[in-house]
């Protein structure tokens, strides 16, 4: 009986570890390949490191343009895009969520249902009209056009925060109101400090969403001043698809920031994902 348990336990470990290796394998490939020269792609097994390695791919990537793509600039744009978008979403989502959770106003329920209904709209369905709207107001290939659809808060985030706000006790808010605190004071002094976990979740989800965003940037940006790293990777792939050592250096640079965030906030991230499934 006991030995059977040990065997089954060992099997379980084996399966889980093999799975984990397969899960991480692409990352290993990114690192190993990015340190190889073009001839080494052919001569060294894909899963073995090249000896001696080379940093030439990274140097090429960071020194000016490759195939008309300023990779480093695009990476910087993605950082900016992610930070500004997340900041905007946090502010506007929190505002709206508070109103929906705590204020009683004409049209509240209708609006809330309208917000929820928009979550059913597939991303691609809005792309053509969004492009036309941006063209109408002259925002094609501008940062305004790139950000506008997302920066004003997302229905999903509002829903998430509203659920959280509704769970907070009313006494504190009542007491503050009696003391003459205004809505903004209550929101900033009471709700925001109490909502750190939910705000953390929202921050993570928005950051990942912004960093991954591809279809809209692909459509709306065309110049070197607006393109994001996802678009940059895709055009690198289109222009010199076979230069895998260079492509993997680019991939590494594009993947690392989120990996660092994952290592730092692993617990919050896991909790955030689970929370999105419980709503």
């Amino acid at each position, binding site marked *: 009986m006991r030995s059977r348990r040990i065997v089954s336990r060992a099997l379980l470990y084996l399966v889980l570890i093999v799975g984990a290796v397969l899960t991480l394998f*692409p990352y290993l490939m990114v690192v190993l390949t990015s340190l190889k020269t073009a001839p080494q792609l052919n001569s060294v097994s894909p899963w073995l490191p090249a000896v001696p390695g080379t940093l030439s791919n990274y140097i090429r990537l960071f020194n000016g343009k490759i195939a008309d793509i300023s990779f480093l600039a695009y990476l910087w744009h993605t950082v900016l895009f992610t930070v500004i978008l997340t900041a905007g979403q946090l502010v506007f989502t929190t505002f709206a969520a508070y109103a929906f959770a705590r204020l009683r106003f004409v049209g509240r329920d209708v609006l809330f249902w309208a917000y929820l209904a928009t979550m059913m709209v597939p991303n691609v369905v*809005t792309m053509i009209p969004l492009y036309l709207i941006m063209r109408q107001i002259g925002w094609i290939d501008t940062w305004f056009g790139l950000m*506008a659809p997302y920066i004003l808060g997302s229905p999903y985030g509002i829903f998430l925060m509203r659920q959280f706000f509704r769970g907070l006790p009313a006494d504190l808010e009542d007491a503050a109101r009696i003391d003459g605190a205004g809505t903004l004071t209550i929101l900033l002094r009471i709700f925001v400090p109490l909502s750190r976990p939910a705000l953390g979740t929202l921050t993570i989800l928005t950051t990942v969403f912004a960093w991954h965003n591809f279809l809209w940037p692909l459509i709306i940006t065309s110049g070197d001043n607006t393109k994001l790293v996802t678009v940059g990777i895709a055009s690198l792939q289109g222009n010199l698809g076979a230069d895998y050592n260079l492509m993997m250096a680019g991939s590494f640079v594009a993947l690392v920031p989120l990996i660092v965030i994952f290592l730092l906030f692993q617990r919050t991230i*896991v909790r955030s994902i689970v929370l999105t*499934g419980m709503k």
Partner: protein
Amino acid sequence: MSAPIQPPSTNVPAKPTATPADAAGPGNAEPGNAGPGTAAPPGRGGRRVQRLRATLTAYALIGPSLLGVLAFLLAPVVIVAVISLFRWNLLSSPKFIGLANYRRMAHDGSVWHSVLVTFAYVVLTIPVQTVLALLLAVMLNTRLRGVKVLRAVYVVPWMATPVVMGVVWRWIFDGRHGAVNAFLALFGVDAVNWLQSTTLALPTVAIVGIWSSAGYTMLFFLAGLQGIPDHLYEAARVDGATPVQQFFRITLPLLRPTMFFVLVTSVIGSFQVFDTVYSMTAPNYGGPGNATAVLNFKIYSTAFQLFDDGYASAIAMLLFGLLLVLTLAQVLYFRKRTTYEHG
């Protein structure tokens, strides 16, 4: 991001507590009641003003998001429906053609091919991904040493940017020097042209879809598993149920709400795959031939490469309609099958 589905396995502090405004109750501030000379209790008119102020405050607070939702989500849905009735290449002026785009679509083999490819992708990803996620969740729902690290490892792909991962997997599946072929060569298997083959390209893209979502989906099942009370399993063991019986008689039925949420959201996600298709099949996007031209890609290329925007809008409406039907079907199926469990 995802659909408003509510699985009941919840520890979220979402109890609806009465807000101060709720406590005031409805119908407290009928107009005209608080005029001078009436015997209205003091504060009634004040309450009306207060309510007006609350409404103003509320609209100031939701203002930005309301603008966003109206201009960038609701208006586009109306606009896309309208454009689908026009012939328009974005340059010349649009020409109203009624339902001609839809009639054209009905006879357009390439659109139905895209519908087929999309469904094939969903069928290739969802069952494997869901079963894999469930198995992983069961295996990771134990008190093994290091289990937390393993759980975290399986979630890592969720953080991987899909376009970038498409590029990485393309290299892994590269016909000449890719890792998969190099591995197969160890066993004397000839090189396979994964992404250049019309039959293998879509399954190869599907593998990437499964890789990126299995761990993420696992977390939902894990949360669901942890919500199942231990005493059920104890009772089953006392009655002599085998682990397999316990899984099918206890675990699976009680996971049904989680299963519902997972299936609905992952079908919606798979149905709209784009990024990995785009980067894995460059520069013959959607290829080889049209082998990986999913609906999302078909809409993108029709609108932004062929500039046939009226027609692309009609295909977008088709995608929207298919997704609504698919989601509704799942809601109905699970509603029918879920009711008796909590009785």
